[in-house]
Structures are given as structure tokens and as C-alpha cells.
């Protein structure tokens, strides 16, 4: 591989030193350079980075001048290899590079068309034509890989290169000087350390004369430019002042207009407000009136109804009273009438009946009384007669007594009659009195009735009068109420109509006001916009002018601080990559032979041991026949030596033709090199063959030596199995007791042949280790993709913008991106190629500087310690670099490195080493970048993280954004992940080889050792067969040991595999890739299982061998 590169370089005369200058070179400079001691060939040339547009995408093309011979170079340096077509001969022809031809879509005969400007400069400043016809296809030795480097124009990365004749360039001065130095002319190997050292010295020599040349340039060219610039500046300042004045005038006018407008609006507003307030008041009053009206009506109605009620009550009472009066009068009249009637009756009765009767009675009584008195008087007389006669005889006495009783009785009767008469008289008088009394009463009653009648009539009449007046009052009230209601309603309606009218007027006023207001506002806006536009245009013009001035100033400044950049081949990324890869192959090449040698030695040792064991009797016989030890040994020595030698030759041929081919194929994907030169490294072939043969011979001698010491008699007998011995395990009674019989036997057998035990374990362990290492390697690389793109960085797409866009425009674009709901997060940043070296590692290591405009990046770039996970924050005191870069540069946190930014070296302090697997990065804050370089970083990329739910639409999102004019390219991390997975594909070959070797190792070692084991124990096996062991049981007798040995070996192998894997990964690490040292459980599992499969395979073969052992043969005598 290296040889291929070397021959390629030398045939194309790859230059050792390329010098570029910020101000170019003239012929004097070339002469000066040629005069230097170390310069052998010096070729001046031109170079320009131009832009072509294809499908809206701008690509940067690096245009070189076709190498030509000159006074200072007798041969063409960096001569391209013509792949197809021819070199340009006529004007307007070019040759284009091979690899990117397909990508760029051009083919032979097409025309390349440049954009007319490059970063504001006319393309015609660089080359004479805008269109070039492709006449040839080339490969330049300057580009080994597909990395095309960086440019200061466009998106910063060169898409492809092309060449045109040097007289097609419009430069006055050369841009590049290519030098072939003594270092390569004198024939130091291009990749050797001697070459590197020498070129480093030469580089200094070239840098040494730069001052002289630049000084010359300053004196001749610079002075005029400076004056022009200062004039332009003055003009610009005047114009700027004028513009500013105009703008401020316009602004003040606008301001005035705005004020006026505001005042008018306020006035109108106030009036409207007043009208509205009045209206409101009126409304309120109306409402109050309506309410009052309603209340009044209500009240009046209530009163009326009250009066009505009262009147009705009165009427009722009057009627009642009248009725009562009439009734009473009638009643009284009736009573009076009846009293009159009774009186009349009594009167009649008394006067016509009672009185005459009573008077009759009284007259009777008087007659009675008188009769009585007469009787009495006659009786008295008689009595008195008798008494007076005094002689009263008895009949006379009786008469006296009867007369006396008669007298008494009549006196009594008299009194009674008298009494009764009196009483009657009295009664009659009484009756008469009573009648008179009744008559009086009756008269009084009649009188009273009359009075009452009169009174009642008067009262009733009064009441009637009252009622009538009340009724007339009520009627009047009712009439009044009706009238009042009608008038109130009328008033209210009038008021309502007034209000409505007022409202309508107010609304009209308002609408009018709004229209006026809007109109005014539009007018104002228009004038403001005009002003803004004027201002914007003015600013644009001014800033353009200023930019031009600044550019001019910058250019001049650059010219002022003109310097030379002297690069050796290391600055060619392809070249250093080739060296790295070659070294990596080298380191693999260093690891593997050792390992495979060990494997081979083990295989040989076991095989030779077996062979010697098998030929034991033969050795004994030969010895007995008198052959010397040396003679016998030489037989085996020569035998194995011949085998080894022929094996080496076959192996070498296969090795030379296949392995490098595979490896170069793998790397060939990445390099543009002519078909691989098959370089037969005779020395390494010889060395490996010699080592191989030597090892095998030594091993066979060692195997023989043991047997040759033994007396021929013993040798001629089959080797007696080693006598049994107690093993250590038996002394640990508890364990031994619990083991079953077969495991005891197995355990004892295992330790019976310690050497064999060791060899088996080593062999099996080696097998497992190889498998684990192979798959571990795969794990590590697979893990990169996972850890890098799912853990450390999580951005999904990267949008490249034009760096030259204004900050405002970028901010606007960012806001657009942020507004896309499919994009969860986006961070604006700067990414640029840089180089760094350190005290401990003087060679420049290429990495990328990453600067983020703000903290948006934090979710997408995890700056953290790999082991502890501690998060780091970027500070303004230094930079953060990735762990691998720290390893390569051999620096730690707190150390300083020399970082090359914008072609200047700066010392930076490392504040932290962050976890990262793929690529080298220098992270820093914009402030720190400014502090270092004095410039603001030119943000040109946007990292975006797509929301989980839109992950599947990645391509659509990319396409959508590609349509945005400000975005030049969109790249996806998926591509990077795929690149790593591709790498994995190429690794599969290596893994297959390793697993194959592992299997071979395990099978051969186990086969040999099991064979020896069986051969020695043929008698034992035959015996147990005779004892009645079935085939499988017999086989198990041996297998069990193999299985245990395999298990032990596999376990040891897992540990060894881990170590080996770490070792290999370390050895093949690249400068910019850190392989995580990860071994997944699956790998261990595979290592274990595959080893067992190999072991089982051997056991399977051995089964037949064991079956073949004849019991009869083995029972024969052992003489």
C-alpha cells in the first residue's frame, strides 16, 4: 500500500513543499526560492476557487493551472494522470478530475460554466473565460482521498477540482509555488521519519525568505492602493452624512404628521364621548319617567279601586240599613197593630164582658152580703130574743147553738163575700187601670214608632245623599285617571323617540370617526413605510459601500500583513490519511502475526507430539537397530521441516495474493490510487517462513527428545498410561464425597496429563479469545454509530448557509426554522477545518472547530465526561476538545495546545475533554474565538433535531428546506451512520478470517490432543467396552474430559478475548475515531457457543474413531 503510494508520488513528481502567499508571487520571488539550497525544482502556478451553479446549488470548484515546465523546473511537478481525453491545448479548454465527474454530472465534451461573481468579486478577476470545455479527465497526485479540502468561498467545501492552462488565469502574480526538495529527490522514503524530519527543516528555510519577498511587494504595489482607499473613504463619509440628513428630515416630518393626526383624533373622540354621555343621561331619565309613570298609574289605579270598594261597601251598608229599617218599621208596626188589637180585645172583653160579669158578681155578692146581714141580723135578733127571754129551754139552746153557728158561718161568709167583693172591685179597677196603662203604652209606642220612622227615614236619606256624592266623586276620579294615563303615555313615547334619534346620530358620528381615523392611519403608515424603505435602501447602499470599503481595507490590511503559508505534504488530508491507514494496517499486521504464530506453534506442538507418540514403536525399533539419536531425530526434523517449508511457501503465495488484496480493496474505497502495486515484501515473507519452520522444527525436536531418552525396549512397547495418582481434590473430602463416580474419574483423568490439560486449555482459550476479539471489534465499531449519533450528538440534519449572509438574515432564517413544527430544535453554528498540535505531539492533527451562536446546541451536542457523565459548559477561558484528540495530542485538561485558525496559530487552554467517537472537534464560544482571532465567527451551518413524530419524514423536510434560497445544502446524519456501517462491512472479512482461524485452532488442537488421549488409552477403552459400556457411554468417558477442558478453556478465553479485543481496538484506532471498548454479552455468548460447537465437532469425529477400537486387539498381550 505504501509502496503503491510512493511509486505514484514519485512518477507524478509530487511536490514536497507548496507555498501560498496572501499577496502572490512574482518572478523575482520564484528566483529567490529557486536559489535556495534545498529547492530542486520550483514550479509557479495559479489557483482559484470559483463557483458553479447546478440545480440551484452552488458548488465550489478549485481551478489549478496545468503543470508546465519552466526555467526553474525541468520537469512537470504534480503531474496529473490523464484518465481520458487529452490535456487542454486551445483557449477555453479544461480538464476535470475523475472521481467527482460522475457526481458533478459532467462528462467529456461538456462545458463548465462559472458564476459571474465569487463572493462579490468578478470571476473575470480570476480567469479569462466563464465557460470551459472539458477535454480531458485527470487524477492529480495532490488528491489521494475523496476529501477535497476547504475553501474560503461558497459553503467552504470544495466539490471538485479542474485544471486550465496557466495563461487562462487573469492574475498578475502567481498564487502558488510548488517545490520539489532535496528530501524526495535524494530518495528518502516518502513515508519515513527521515523524510519528515528533513522536510520540516526545509520548510523553515522557505519560511525564512518570505520576509524579504513581502517587503519588496509592499514597496512597489501597496502605496497606490492605500491612497485610493483613503479617497474612497472620504467620499463615502460625505455621502453617508448627506443620506443621514435626508433621513432625519423625513423622520421629523412624519413625526409631525403623526402628532397632528393624534390630536385630531383625540378631539373627535372627546366630542363623541360627550354626545354619548348626554344620550346616556337622556336614556336614564326616560327610564326614570317610564318608571314613575308606571308607578303613578299603579297608585291611581289602586286608589280608584279602593274608592270603588269603599263606595260599594257604603252602598251595601245603606241597602242593608234600609232593609233593616223597613223590616224593623214593619215589625214595629205589626207589633203595634197586634198590641192595638189585643188592647181592643182586652178593652172589649173588659168593658163588655168582664166588667159586667164582675159587676154582676159584685151585685150578687152585695146581695149575698145583704142576705147574710139580714140572716145575721135576724139570727142576732132571734138570739138576742132568746137571750133576752132568758128562758131558753133545751130546744131553744140547740136553736141558739145553731143560730150562733149560723151566725158565725154567715159572718164568715159575709167577710168572705165582702173580701171577694173588694177583691173584685179591686180587680176591676186594676183591670181598668191596666187597660188605661196599656192604652197609654200603646199610644206611646205609636208615637215612638212614628218618631223612629221619621228618624230612620231621615238617616237613610242622609246616607243616600252621602252615597250619591261618593258615587259622583268616584266617577270624577275615574275620569281623571283615564286622562292622566293617556297623557303620561304620550309623553313617554315622545321621549323614547327623541332618544332613538339621539342614538342614531351618535352611531353615525362614530362610524364617521372610525373611517376618518383609519384613513389617517393608512396615510401615516404609507408615509412611514416610504420613510423606512428609503432608510433601508439608504442603509443597504451605505452598508454595501462600507462593505466594499472594508473589503478593500481588509485586502489592503491583508496585503499589509502579507505572509507566506508553507505547507508540506502533511497538510494534504489525503496524504496524511494514507499514512494513517497504512500505519493502521501495519499495526494490525504487527498484532496478528504474533497471535497467529502462537496459534500455529500450538497446533504444531500438538501435532508433532502426536506424530512422535504414534511413531514411538518405530523410534524404539530404529534405536534398537542401532541408529543414533541424531539420525532418528533428523528424520522427524527433516519431515516436519519439509512440511513446514512447503506449508510456508503455499501460505506465502496465498497470503501475498489474497490478504493485502482484501485490505487494499477495503481501503481502496477511500483512496484514489492507481491499481494496487503488488509489493512482495520478501523480508517479511522470509521472516515469517523462517519463524514458522523454526518453530515447527524446534517443536518436533522437543517432542522427539523426550522419547529418545528412553531405552528402546520400553519404547517398543506401547506407551504405558501414566499410573494413577490422587489429585488434590480428593483431599477435600466434602467435595469429593459428593461427586458421582464418573465425575471423579473425569476429575482424576483431567489432572493425569498436566501438559495436555494446559495445551488444550490454551488452544481452546485461544479459539474463544479470537472469536470474542473478532466480534468485540465489530461491537466496538457498531457502537460508534450508536453512541455518536444517538448519545453524544443528536442532530439529524445539517443545513449549510452562506457565511456571507448578514446576521439579520441568518436570524430571520433561524426564526423560520424554529417555526417549523417538524423541527424540534435548531442551532446556528460555525464549523470549519482547523489543525492543532501540542508539546507532546508536534504533528498537526486535523479537526473541526465548532462554535455555536447561542445555547440552542446544548440538546444536540452533549459535552460531557465519558466515564462520569459530568456535563461540561463552554467558557470563555478556553476550548473543549474531544477525548480522542486529547489522546492523540497527549494532552489533558488544563494543558494547552496550538490551534491553527484562519492560518494563524493560537495557544488555547483545554478546559475539558468531552466524550466523542467519530471526528475531532474543537469547541469554543464565539467570545473566545473573537478573543483569539479578533473576528466574529462566520456562522454557516444550522444543526437541526427533528421531532420524534416526524422522524420518518426526514427526506421531505430536507427537500422542503433545500427549496429555501438561503440554504445551500442539507446533509443528514443518516449518511454518516451509513458510512460507518459500510466500514463494518469491510470489517466482516477480517471477522470471518478470525473466526475461521479460531475454529481451525480449536479443532486442530482438540483433535490432536484427543487423538493422543485415545491412543494412549486404547486399552482402557477396550476394557470398559468389555465390561459392557455402550458406545455412547464409552465415548462419554473421553468426551467428558473434553467438555470440561473446553469449558475451562472457553472461560479463560473470554477473559483473554476481552484483553485481545481491547488491544486490537487500541492498535487500529485512527486519529479521529475513538472506538468504544465495548463487548456485548452476545459476543461472549457467541465466543462460548462457537467454541463449544468446534469442540462438539471434534467429539463427533472422535466418536467413530472410538467405535473402531477393537476389543480383541486390545486384550492382546503387551509384550
Amino acid at each position, binding site marked *: 500500500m505504501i509502496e503503491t503510494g510512493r511509486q505514484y508520488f514519485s512518477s507524478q513528481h509530487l511536490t514536497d513543499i507548496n507555498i501560498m502567499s496572501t499577496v502572490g508571487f512574482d518572478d523575482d520571488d520564484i528566483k529567490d526560492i529557486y536559489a535556495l539550497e534545498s529547492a530542486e525544482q520550483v514550479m509557479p502556478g495559479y489557483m482559484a476557487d470559483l463557483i458553479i451553479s447546478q440545480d440551484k446549488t452552488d458548488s465550489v470548484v478549485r481551478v489549478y493551472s496545468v503543470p508546465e515546465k519552466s526555467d526553474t523546473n525541468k520537469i512537470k511537478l504534480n503531474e496529473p494522470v490523464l484518465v481520458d481525453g487529452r490535456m487542454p491545448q486551445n483557449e477555453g479548454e479544461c480538464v476535470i478530475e475523475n472521481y467527482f465527474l460522475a457526481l458533478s454530472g459532467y462528462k467529456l465534451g461538456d462545458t463548465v460554466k462559472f458564476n459571474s461573481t465569487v463572493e462579490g468579486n468578478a470571476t473575470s478577476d480570476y480567469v479569462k473565460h466563464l465557460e470551459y470545455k472539458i477535454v480531458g479527465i485527470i487524477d492529480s497526485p495532490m488528491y489521494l482521498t475523496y476529501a477535497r479540502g476547504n475553501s474560503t468561498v461558497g459553503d467552504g467545501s470544495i466539490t471538485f477540482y479542474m485544471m486550465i492552462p496557466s495563461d487562462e488565469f487573469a492574475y498578475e502574480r502567481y498564487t502558488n509555488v510548488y517545490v520539489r526538495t532535496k528530501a524526495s529527490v535524494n530518495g528518502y522514503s516518502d513515508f519515513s521519519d527521515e523524510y519528515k524530519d528533513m522536510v520540516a527543516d526545509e520548510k523553515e528555510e522557505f519560511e525564512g525568505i518570505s520576509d524579504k519577498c513581502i517587503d519588496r511587494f509592499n514597496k512597489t504595489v501597496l502605496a497606490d492602493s492605500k491612497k485610493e482607499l483613503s479617497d474612497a473613504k472620504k467620499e463615502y463619509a460625505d455621502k453617508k452624512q448627506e443620506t443621514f440628513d435626508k433621513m432625519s428630515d423625513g423622520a421629523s416630518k412624519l413625526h409631525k404628521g403623526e402628532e397632528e393626526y393624534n390630536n385630531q383624533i383625540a378631539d373627535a373622540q372627546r366630542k363623541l364621548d360627550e354626545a354619548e354621555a348626554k344620550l346616556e343621561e337622556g336614556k336614564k331619565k326616560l327610564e326614570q319617567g317610564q318608571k314613575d309613570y308606571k308607578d303613578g298609574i299603579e297608585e291611581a289605579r289602586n286608589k280608584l279601586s279602593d274608592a270603588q270598594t269603599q263606595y260599594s261597601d257604603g252602598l251595601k251598608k245603606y241597602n242593608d240599613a234600609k232593609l233593616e229599617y223597613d223590616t224593623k218599621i214593619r215589625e214595629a208596626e205589626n207589633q203595634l197593630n197586634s198590641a192595638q188589637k189585643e188592647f181592643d180585645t182586652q178593652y172589649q172583653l173588659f168593658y163588655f164582658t168582664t166588667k159586667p160579669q164582675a159587676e154582676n158578681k159584685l151585685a150578687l155578692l152585695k146581695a149575698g152580703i145583704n142576705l147574710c146581714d139580714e140572716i145575721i141580723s135576724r139570727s142576732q135578733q132571734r138570739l138576742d130574743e132568746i137571750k133576752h127571754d132568758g128562758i131558753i129551754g133545751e130546744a131553744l139552746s140547740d136553736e141558739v147553738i145553731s143560730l150562733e153557728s149560723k151566725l158565725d158561718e154567715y159572718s164568715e161568709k159575709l167577710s168572705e163575700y165582702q173580701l171577694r167583693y173588694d177583691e173584685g172591685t179591686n180587680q176591676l179597677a186594676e183591670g181598668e187601670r191596666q187597660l188605661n196603662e196599656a192604652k197609654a203604652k200603646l199610644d206611646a209606642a205609636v208615637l215612638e214608632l212614628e218618631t223612629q220612622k221619621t228618624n230612620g227615614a231621615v238617616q237613610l236619606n242622609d246616607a243616600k245623599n252621602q252615597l250619591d256624592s261618593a258615587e259622583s266623586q268616584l266617577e270624577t276620579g275615574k275620569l281623571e285617571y283615564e286622562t292622566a294615563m293617556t297623557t303620561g303615555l304620550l309623553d313617554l313615547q315622545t321621549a323614547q323617540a327623541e332618544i332613538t334619534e339621539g342614538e342614531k346620530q351618535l352611531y353615525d358620528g362614530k362610524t364617521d370617526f372610525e373611517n376618518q381615523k383609519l384613513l389617517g392611519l393608512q396615510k401615516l403608515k404609507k408615509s412611514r413605510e416610504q420613510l423606512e424603505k428609503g432608510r433601508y435602501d439608504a442603509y443597504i447602499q451605505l452598508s454595501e459601500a462600507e462593505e466594499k470599503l472594508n473589503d478593500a481595507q481588509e485586502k489592503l490590511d491583508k496585503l499589509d500583513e502579507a505572509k507566506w503559508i508553507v505547507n508540506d505534504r502533511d497538510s494534504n488530508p489525503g496524504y496524511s490519511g494514507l499514512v494513517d491507514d497504512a500505519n493502521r494496517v501495519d499495526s494490525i499486521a504487527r498484532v496478528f502475526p504474533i497471535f497467529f504464530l502462537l496459534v500455529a506453534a500450538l497446533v504444531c506442538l500438538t501435532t508433532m507430539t502426536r506424530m512422535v507418540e504414534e511413531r514411538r514403536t518405530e523410534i524404539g525399533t530404529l534405536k534398537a537397530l542401532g541408529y543414533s539419536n541424531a539420525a532418528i531425530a533428523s528424520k522427524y526434523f527433516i519431515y516436519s521441516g519439509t512440511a513446514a517449508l512447503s506449508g510456508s511457501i503455499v501460505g506465502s503465495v496465498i497470503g501475498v495474493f489474497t490478504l493485502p488484496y482484501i485490505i487494499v480493496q477495503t481501503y481502496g474505497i477511500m483512496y484514489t490510487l492507481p491499481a494496487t502495486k503488488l509489493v512482495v515484501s520478501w523480508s517479511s515473507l522470509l521472516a515469517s517462513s523462517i519463524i514458522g519452520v523454526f518453530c515447527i522444527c524446534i517443536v518436533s525436536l522437543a517432542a522427539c527428545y523426550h522419547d529418545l531418552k528412553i531405552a528402546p525396549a520400553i519404547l517398543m512397547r506401547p506407551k*504405558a*498410561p*501414566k*499410573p*494413577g*495418582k490422587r489429585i488434590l481434590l480428593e483431599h477435600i473430602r466434602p467435595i469429593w464425597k459428593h461427586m458421582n*463416580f*464418573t465425575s*471423579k*474419574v473425569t476429575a*482424576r*483423568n483431567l489432572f*493425569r496429563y498436566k501438559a495436555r490439560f494446559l495445551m488444550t486449555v490454551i488452544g481452546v482459550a485461544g479459539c474463544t479469545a479470537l472469536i470474542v476479539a473478532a466480534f468485540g471489534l465489530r461491537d466496538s465499531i457498531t457502537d460508534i454509530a450508536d453512541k455518536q449519533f444517538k448519545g453524544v450528538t443528536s442532530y439529524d440534519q445539517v443545513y449549510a448557509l452562506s457565511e456571507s449572509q448578514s446576521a439579520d438574515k441568518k436570524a430571520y432564517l433561524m426564526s423560520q426554522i424554529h417555526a417549523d413544527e417538524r423541527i424540534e430544535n435548531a442551532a446556528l453554528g460555525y464549523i470549519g477545518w482547523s489543525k492543532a498540535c501540542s508539546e507532546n505531539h508536534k504533528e498537526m492533527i486535523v479537526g473541526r472547530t465548532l462554535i455555536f451562536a447561542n445555547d440552542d446546541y446544548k440538546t444536540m451536542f452533549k459535552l460531557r465526561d465519558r466515564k462520569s457523565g459530568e456535563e461540561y459548559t463552554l467558557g470563555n477561558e478556553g476550548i473543549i476538545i474531544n477525548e480522542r484528540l486529547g489522546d492523540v495530542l497527549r494532552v489533558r485538561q488544563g494543558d494547552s495546545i496550538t490551534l491553527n485558525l484562519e492560518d494563524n496559530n493560537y495557544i488555547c487552554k483545554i478546559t475539558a475533554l468531552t466524550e466523542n467517537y467519530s471526528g475531532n472537534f474543537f469547541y469554543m464560544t464565539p467570545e473566545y474565538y473573537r478573543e483569539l482571532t479578533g473576528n466574529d465567527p462566520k456562522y454557516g451551518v444550522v444543526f437541526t433535531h427533528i421531532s420524534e413524530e416526524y422522524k420518518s419524514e426526514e427526506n421531505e423536510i430536507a427537500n422542503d428546506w433545500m427549496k429555501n434560497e438561503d440554504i445551500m445544502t442539507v446533509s443528514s446524519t443518516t449518511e454518516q451512520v451509513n458510512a460507518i456501517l459500510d466500514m463494518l462491512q469491510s470489517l466482516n472479512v477480517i471477522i470471518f478470517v478470525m473466526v475461521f482461524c479460531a475454529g481451525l485452532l480449536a479443532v486442530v488442537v482438540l483433535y490432536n490432543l484427543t487423538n493422543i488421549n485415545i491412543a494412549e488409552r486404547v*486399552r*482402557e477403552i*477396550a*476394557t*470398559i*467396552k*468389555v*465390561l*459392557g*459400556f*455402550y*458406545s455412547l*457411554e464409552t465415548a462419554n468417558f473421553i468426551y467428558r474430559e473434553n467438555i470440561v477442558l473446553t469449558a475451562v478453556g472457553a472461560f479463560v478465553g473470554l477473559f483473554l478475548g476481552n484483553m485481545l479485543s481491547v488491544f486490537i481496538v487500541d492498535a487500529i484506532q485512527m486519529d479521529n475515531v475513538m472506538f468504544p471498548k465495548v463487548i456485548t454479552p452476545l459476543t461472549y455468548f457467541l465466543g462460548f457457543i462457537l467454541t463449544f460447537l468446534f469442540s462438539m465437532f471434534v467429539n463427533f469425529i472422535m466418536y467413530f474413531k472410538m467405535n473402531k477400537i477393537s*476389543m*480383541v486387539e486390545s*486384550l492382546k*498381550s*503387551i509384550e
Partner: protein
Amino acid sequence: MMKNFVQFDNVYKRYKMGEVTITAADGVSFSIDEGEFAVVVGLSGAGKTTVLNILGGIDSCDEGRIMVGGKDISHLNKHDLASYRRYDIGFVFQFYNLIPNLTAKENVELATQICRESIDADTALDSVGLSERKNNFPSQLSGGEQQRVSIARALAKKPKLLLCDEPTGALDYNTGKNILRLLQNKCIDDGMTVVLITHNSAITPMANRVISMRSGKVVSNVVNDSPVPVDQIEW
């Protein structure tokens, strides 16, 4: 006691050595009763070992029929032959064939662990008088002792038939005698059928039956009704 416990019917065995065919058993026919101590005697190459191998299921015959305990073993397959060896046959080898890596007891256990019915290893070793040396490895034992272990191993399987291939061949006179005594005692005391092969015809008087062979053929099959104890035999 079964008559014709072992019966060979016209058994042939031929070995091909390149182009030469050697007939090791040339129509062998004989029978042995159960409990007999049978000795097969003949010179080297007479075919006695072949007969023993075929009888022991180690080798197969080409023609003929072999009956052991009423079972035809002449046409058994490999696996059945192994079962036959395992359960029916005890084998005592000329060179003892002990597993060097196992102690005396373990050698016996090696046999007993594969049998259905077996005598305890210790008992077996006791019965051959090796109680003291159970835990010694073969290399630590004398030839006679090793042969006793071998016999113990054969007996421990409780075989129907004990086959002995020149058991005294590698032993000195007295040791050999001891071994023969042991075998005879086993036959007499335990009723074990023993078939012993020897080239030494001097020991034939101790057998119940003597089968003489020559050139792969049985030349005589004599029943000895009054076997002599081993101690009375001299050679």
C-alpha cells in the same frame, strides 16, 4: 442346574489377513452345564481365545449358533452384545486390564455402576481377600493382587458366566495357584459357571469339564466327575 447352559453349535470364525484367510474357529461345537468349572485347553493358535471372545460377546462368529442360558447370542447386534456383556458376563483378563487411574475399589465400582444388580464393591474385594488394599492404585499392587481386583470386578457384576483368559499367564506359580483356588472356590461355593482358557494342560484335573482344541476344532470334550482341589495339582 441347567444342562447345556452354554452351547456352541458348529461355530465358524474367519479372519482375513490381506489375501490369506485364517479360520480361527472351524466348526466348533461343545456344551457346558451350569455350575461347571470348564477348562478350554490347547496350544497357542488353537482357537481357544477366539472361542472365549465369541462366548464373551467381544467378537462375533461368522457361522453357527451360540446359546447361553437359553439365549441365542450369535446374532445379537452391537448394542445387545454390549448389554449381554454388561449383565451376563464377567471377564478376567490375562493382563488384568485394570484402569490405572482408578483405585482397586474404583475399578470394581466401574463395573458395578453400570449393572442392575451388583455386589457392593467392598464386599467383592473382601471376598477375594483384598480388604486392606482397596484404596491402592493398580501400580501399587502386585500382579496377583491386580488379578484379584480383576476377579472381584468380574464377580461384582453377578454374572451368569465367568470367563477367564489365561488368568495365571502373567503370574508366578504360587500366585497363579492362589488365583485358581479362588476361582475354584467361587465355582464350588457360589455355583458360578466358570470357563477358563489355558495352554497349561496340567491344571485340567481341577475342572469339571475339559475341552481340548486344536487348529480351531474341538478335539475332545471330557467330563471329569471328580475334580481335584487346586492344592493337589503340581505343574
